[in-house]
């Protein structure tokens, strides 16, 4: 093997001479792939759908009591799974909520589930915010949060994850409005997520087709309840959450004033629908199928 070994040594020697350049190139590539990632998960404090929900006299949804929206546990779980799948990458999961004082419950629950830190935007001028005003405020909040975060391994990319819709508003329009304002890409109603080095591949259903859509950062992505099975916080996580930072800020803290968040849409009237009442209930005695058809015929539904 003597003669054959010589070229190898020669190559090695060449590498030694230029090792500084080589190593710095390798580092740069490493840095490109492993740029830190800041995942902002939007979580909302909403009236409990299991209880009676109502409008108040001002034509606004009564928000005196609430819970972390169940639909917002899915983006939080998605964020934690992305982080856990990339242990060599610096990834921070921030929970961001906007709402009245009570909304800190949602932020705290997010910390218990596993977010690294949390922010709560609270301001009386946000009461009665419509979709338009909400996306104005959240855009400023996301920029403030990403601007304040410090990362050890370089300039972070950011990804905003949201639930498919808010449980009480149900419009599902916020992710697209937020993305438009942030100048970020948007993909909504994800039923599956594959996080690759520099992009996110989303499975979703678009109208009459199933799609796989690749999106690069910065991005706003909403996820459905099909995307994962959210974890429950255990005792250890609940205790650990007490030490995690929860920052409250106001409109002024994110650089906005009242006139920036005046709603474009106002609710004129609200009318509670009379609750449905039970009709005729019979026990099948062998003729219930016929009786249903008779009922449908009587109601002119056939």
């Amino acid at each position, binding site marked *: 093997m003597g003669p054959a070994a010589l070229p190898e040594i020669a190559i090695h020697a060449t590498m030694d001479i230029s090792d500084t350049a080589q190593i710095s190139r390798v580092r740069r590539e490493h840095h490109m792939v492993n740029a830190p990632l800041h995942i902002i998960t939007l979580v909302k404090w909403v009236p409990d759908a299991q209880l009676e929900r109502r409008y108040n006299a001002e034509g606004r949804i009564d928000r005196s009591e609430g819970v972390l929206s169940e639909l917002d546990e899915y983006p939080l779980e998605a964020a934690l799974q992305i982080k856990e799948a990339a242990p060599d990458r610096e990834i921070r999961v921030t929970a961001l909520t906007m709402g009245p004082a009570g909304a800190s419950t949602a932020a705290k629950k997010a910390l218990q589930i596993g977010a690294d830190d949390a922010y709560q935007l609270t301001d009386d001028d946000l009461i009665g915010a419509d979709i338009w005003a909400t996306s104005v405020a959240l855009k400023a909040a996301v920029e403030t949060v990403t601007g304040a975060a410090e990362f050890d391994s370089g300039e972070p990319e950011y990804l905003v994850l949201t639930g498919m819709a808010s449980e009480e508003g149900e419009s*599902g329009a916020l992710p697209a*409005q937020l993305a438009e304002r942030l100048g970020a890409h948007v993909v909504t109603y994800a039923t599956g997520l594959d996080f690759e080095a520099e992009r996110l591949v989303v499975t979703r259903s678009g109208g009459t087709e199933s799609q796989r859509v690749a999106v690069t950062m910065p991005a706003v992505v909403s996820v459905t309840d099909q995307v994962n099975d959210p974890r429950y916080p255990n005792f250890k996580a609940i205790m650990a959450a007490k030490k995690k930072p929860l920052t409250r800020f106001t409109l002024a803290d994110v650089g906005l004033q009242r006139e920036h968040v005046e709603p474009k*849409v106002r609710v004129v009237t609200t009318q509670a629908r009379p609750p449905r009442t039970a009709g005729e209930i019979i026990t099948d005695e062998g003729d219930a199928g016929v009786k249903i058809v008779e009922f449908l015929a009587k109601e002119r539904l056939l």
Partner: protein
Amino acid sequence: MSNVLVFFDELGEALTPAQKELIAQAAALGEVHIAVAAYDGDPTPVLAVNGVQEVYLPEVSLPAPEVAIVDLLETSVAESGALVVLGSSTADATDALARLAVRLDTGLICGAGSISADLVVTKSELAGSYTTTSQLVSAATPAQPLVVTFKPNNIDPQRVATLVTDGEQPEVNVLPVRPSVGGVQIEERTAMEVSARPALAEARIVVAGGRGTDGDFTPLEELADELGAGLGASRAATDAGWIEHAAQVGQTGVTVSPQLYISAGISGAVHQRAGMQTAGTIVAINKDEDAQVFEIADFGVVGDLHEVIPQMIEELRRRKG
């Protein structure tokens, strides 16, 4: 009367019932202009409807989530001089219209049921427990059009048929809008199986099954076909894999508001009810007399769906027969 811009994120070989409804909603407000994002061939013959004056198309078809759809809409608003923009409340249409509202710096109302001539929008809120009306704050002197998405099934199909009738081919404007490059890329598209049954959200009658089917949807399918109904399911049934997820009726699935909802083997917990309690008439079949669904059923049968439904089918056939 004002000009109205209607947005179709995709247009097939014929207008869907929801698209006809949108045209009907628009025609009551003024001259109808239509912007179409994704299409095959020449879409104008499909849009030859009385009241439809102008159609706006991109240079090439733009399937959602293509971001250039917002450019198409923005240009179409300018071209049409519309005072209101209407679309459906599906995910893709909502995304595009939500972005449009930011670009135009205007208000957005989602999930509407109807709109009046003075642009006051009526919608159902909090899973059907409230009805609200809302409008632009600047309604008296609107600088920008109001953007509204609609849920289907708010106008009686017979009324839609009288409002949406064949007409002249509209004038077509091809706008200089092309697909964007990078950022969001569709890598794979798979057409979903199209059921011969009516689409769930648009169906006038819905037959839905849950845990009580024990995984066998055959009797429900037969009943649905006998009634010309859409087929739905509870989350328990879709999670069990007995039927595709797209069939899920409920808060996180499809919200339906049919004339008639037949619930079979579904307990009727809050999340399910949120998706169907605005139905005109509810008929429930459940073995458990304490099932919550009986609290809201107009007609309920405590019994085994595997016996009751076949008898229903037999009786329906006998009456037709």
